[in-house]
């Protein structure tokens, strides 16, 4: 089930919120778990068993790791649990990729398994690993399987993150408070995330689709596509994260931020501190640091960076372009570490152009069907292969999506929250903002509903991860 769907908004959510606040405190996690299982089963009825077994295994291993912590057996159980979690992920997500490449290398013709990817498996597998590793490192295991299952399956972050560490919400699972303030904050966050997704991301996605289906490619069209896709993926994913964080707040949870205006970064290093923060920190804490992190010789450090970014790319999808995408960032990060970072600090304009350009190129690689198409798209940006400078369709799309692009550009910067903050500096301004905010949110909900009722274009990009 998508958050940006009528079914979620007008059937699932009212029922879940109603039941959640109707039931006493001791049953709230149970309500959350059952509604989360329904939410998951709605999209993947068959894979509910897979997630259930993952939870039971994780729960059991968690207790075992805690019991034998500090002993060899604790380490064995920890490694075993991680291997089992990863083997589920490898089988369901990567097996056909490995078979395809094995066939290509050996000339064999092993048939593909064509396994359907369980929704959200990449996210909940990483949460499970973080749970087990955190226990191994000293965190207390969850004794109540309902609470443990509610943590893994919690619907706000189940299918698209952010990747919530057990250590971050362990206490909230046991004791959390609910308040009007927190719920109102959650509602604002949820509605603005929904607006980002439905009113901006979906429309920018429509522009990308028009480009993909067009026979009238031109240099302008390639740039328009690259620009639009960069904004599309940002609003799609950060919108979903906002909705998750907002829903979390309504239910009394405080999830960590996942995006912090990445497009205002002045270096790729900074970009990755602002983009998909929960994934970046997960790889840092569970892969990069265990590999030695920065406290090793430069050669080994670069190996660590390459390894982490190859895995980051591979996490996003079972295809070579994702691996290349990850390695592309690894190379940029290494160049910045060795040489570029100090020069970037000298020119703000250059550093921003540099970041936007390379991030745009990276997303062209990311969104390509394969590397062949990625090269074709990148060549198109520079008019190689005789692509014309402009085409009628590119001009039409530019004028038709112009306002949306402008809104998206402004929305990708902290300009709006900054503006609101400035207005709120004065008591009268704050009063006005506070008065109109609830009504603005309701109008937004109405317009979002109108788009959902009218539109069929509503896929969520991060589903495939």
């Amino acid at each position, binding site marked *: 089930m998508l958050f940006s769907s009528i*079914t979620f908004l007008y*059937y699932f959510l009212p029922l879940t919120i109603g039941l959640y606040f109707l039931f006493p405190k001791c049953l709230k996690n149970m309500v959350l778990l059952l509604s989360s299982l329904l939410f998951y089963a709605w999209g993947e*009825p068959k894979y509910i068993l897979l997630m259930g077994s993952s939870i039971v295994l994780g729960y059991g291993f968690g207790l075992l790791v805690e019991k034998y912590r500090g002993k060899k057996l604790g380490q064995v159980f920890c490694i075993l649990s991680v291997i089992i979690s990863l083997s589920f992920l490898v089988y369901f997500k990567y097996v056909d990729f490995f078979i395809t490449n094995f066939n290509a290398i050996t000339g064999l013709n092993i048939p593909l398994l064509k396994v359907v990817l369980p929704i959200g498996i990449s996210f909940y597998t990483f949460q499970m690993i973080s749970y087990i590793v955190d226990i191994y490192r000293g965190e207390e295991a969850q004794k109540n399987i309902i609470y443990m299952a509610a943590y893994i399956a919690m619907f706000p972050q189940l299918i698209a993150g952010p990747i919530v560490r057990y250590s971050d919400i362990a206490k909230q699972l046991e004791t959390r408070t609910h308040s*009007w303030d927190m719920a109102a904050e959650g509602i604002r966050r949820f509605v603005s995330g929904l607006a980002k997704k439905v009113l901006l991301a979906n429309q920018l996605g429509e522009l990308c689709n028009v480009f993909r289906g067009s*026979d*009238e490619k031109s240099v302008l069209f390639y740039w328009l596509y690259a620009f639009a896709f960069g904004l599309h993926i940002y609003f799609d994913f950060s919108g979903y994260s906002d909705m998750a964080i907002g829903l979390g707040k309504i239910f009394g949870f405080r999830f960590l931020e996942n995006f912090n205006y990445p497009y205002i970064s002045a270096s790729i290093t900074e970009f990755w501190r602002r983009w998909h923060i929960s994934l970046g920190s997960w790889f840092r804490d569970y892969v990069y640091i265990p590999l030695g992190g920065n406290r090793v010789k430069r050669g080994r450090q670069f190996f660590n960076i390459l390894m982490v970014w190859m895995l980051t790319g591979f996490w996003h999808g079972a295809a070579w372009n994702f691996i290349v995408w990850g390695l592309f960032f690894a190379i940029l990060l290494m160049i910045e570490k060795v040489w570029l970072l100090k020069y970037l600090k000298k020119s703000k304009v250059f550093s921003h152009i540099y970041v936007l350009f390379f991030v745009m190129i990276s997303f062209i690689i990311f969104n390509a069907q394969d590397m062949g198409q990625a090269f074709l798209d990148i060549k198109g940006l520079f008019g190689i292969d005789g692509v014309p400078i402009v085409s009628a*369709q590119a001009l039409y799309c530019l004028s038709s999506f112009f306002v949306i692009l402008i809104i998206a550009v402004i929305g990708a910067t902290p300009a709006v929250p900054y503006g609101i903050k400035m207005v709120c500096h004065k008591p009268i301004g704050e009063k006005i903002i506070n008065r109109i905010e609830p009504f603005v949110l309701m109008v937004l909900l109405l317009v979002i*509903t109108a788009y959902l*009722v009218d539109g069929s274009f509503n896929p969520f990009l991060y589903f495939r991860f």
Partner: protein
Amino acid sequence: MKKVTCILFAVFLAAGFLLCVFLPKAQYSDSERRKLASMPTFQAQNIWNGRFMTDFETYAVDTFPFRTAFRTLKAVTATNVFFKKDNNDIYVSDGFIAAVEYPFNEDSLNRAVKRFRYIYETYLTKNNKVFLSIIPDKNCFLAKDSGHLSMDYREFEEQMKQKMDFAQYISISELLEKDDYYKTDTHWRQEKIIDVAERLAQNMGTTLSSNYKLHTLTHDFYGVYYGQAALPLESDVLQYVTQDVFDECYVYDGQNNKEITMYDMEKAAGRDPYEMFLSGSLSLVILNNLKAQEDKKLIVFRDSFGSSIAPLLISGYSQITLVDIRYIQPDYLGQFVHFDNCDVLFLYSTLVLNNSETLK
């Protein structure tokens, strides 16, 4: 105000939920001219394979309370807030609603020509005079001025002429302008295409009676684009012309084996009033002019535009056979249509030629 936000949100969701669950569901959308999805069957197998959920999503969207009003809100937001040049490929220019018809689909044109050539080679001989005429869609007269995408209609016409080398081309595009089309519908206005009918007749070697009477439907006509645009726009006025010769005509619906009238007044009051012309979408219709001066027969391969122009041509013929190969396989035509000594006109709109997958 935090409390107000929470209460408003709760009321909004609760009201939405209650309306979704308890409000009676429409089964048909007049504005979209389609059947709406119905509640899927709640069965274990449907749930296990995910079918129930997928179908429910469609059902929830299709039967959402005040769906038409929400579609209007979306269209207004898209055009007046986001300044999109079109909404779902529909745009409004100078009060006319049109659909973006772009780009020129050469493969589609080739496919159409292939189907027409098949008919020519299978059924026609040198004794048949074959004509071709192309009706430009409304977009041809609106798109350029309003800054919308417009395919190269001249190129379209040229290619069609070249590829249909077995037919004599009759150009009508210079006789048409935007006012010759309905504002809310795809089609041309019958009362405005008398000159087109005369041009066709003249080129096919016949003359038409110029004795026309104009009639106007009393109720509003909302065409197919009206529902698609979902914008609050004015309705059209549907007019039709009659001639004395109509009293001497016998119209036969070959698809349903029954006599029909030139203008079906029941359909004029129905969901799509344009269907009043020769009863709308029928694969085979034969117009017999019982008082014709000479035995001159015409077979028209046509789309829905043909329904409104055929009555204007009947005074020049003893029989006009209308064939719509979107609804009948050309392979079976020999069983129903006699081609001997008949003139043949291929009369198609660019809308069908540019999307010819509908042709059988």
